[in-house]
């Protein structure tokens, strides 16, 4: 039924736990995975402390280094499990939009993600990006608690 799982990560511990589950799920059903990390666009006016002090070049370089670091975990997990994979990062101010667009473009048939990410359980009920993905996605979403 599912052949291609999109696994978005923001590098948070909750998100990485979900990655492990998703890879295990992919292995058990013989599906391939696409790992995705979304980088926010550079802004001069921002609430991201690190973005205020950075130049555009430095911010982009740091973001890419983070993306590679987060995605390499997916890469390693997928390789260890013998799951076919690819990894990618995109730049978008709205992670949920990038997640849904990437799922469509790469032909994924399910999105597997954690209920909460970087902001933790401060969004008491559901993480905000997960909630938005659930609202706007046209394909099934597997939510790890």
């Amino acid at each position, binding site marked *: 039924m*599912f052949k291609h799982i999109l696994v978005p990560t923001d590098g948070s511990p909750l998100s990485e736990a979900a990655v492990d*589950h998703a890879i*295990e799920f992919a292995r058990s059903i013989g599906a391939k995975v696409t790992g995705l990390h979304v980088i926010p666009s550079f802004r001069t006016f921002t609430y991201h402390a690190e973005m205020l002090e950075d130049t555009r070049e430095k911010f982009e370089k740091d973001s890419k280094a983070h993306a590679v670091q987060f995605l390499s975990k997916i890469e390693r997990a997928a390789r260890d499990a013998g799951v076919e994979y690819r990894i990618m990062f995109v730049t978008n101010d709205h992670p949920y939009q990038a997640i849904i667009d990437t799922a469509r473009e790469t032909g994924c048939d399910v999105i597997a993600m954690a209920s909460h990410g970087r902001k933790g359980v401060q969004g*008491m009920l559901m993480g905000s990006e997960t909630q938005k993905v*659930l*609202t706007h996605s046209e394909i*099934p979403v597997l939510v790890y*608690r």
Partner: protein
Amino acid sequence: MYRKILIPTDGSPLSTAAAHAGVDLARQCNADVVSVHVAPPYQYPVNVEIIVPEYPSEEEYQAAMRRHGTAYLDEVRKEAEALGVQFSGTMLFEDNTAKAIIHAATENACDLIFIGSHGRSGLGQLLLGSVTNKILSTCKIPVLVYRVQQEPDKT
């Protein structure tokens, strides 16, 4: 990976469409299916001044709800039998549908809840169906939300 999948159904076309997809996933995972239908418990007519003579007794109400529930569960059972998936169905009387579903998942040691994005109240709600939303915010096991694009034809 998933050994036992809980598939709640409220008998609506949207829910049945999602349930069929859930059975298909169970086949792919080689998992068993536990399907559950939750109905509201009998309401005693305590807050009405005149009890109409047609007001059903508790037995009549439960028998009628069981009849409906069994029909809804049979829709899922048929699909499971067609795909060769091990099936069991339960009917529960409980006011809080989301709580009953999560309880059923725990009772039956299910490791995944497979639920449609919308059910009986239809696609009118912009975000997610209310029961699905409550399950997502309170349960401890993974939940797969199956998006139903449009109301299936009622044939």
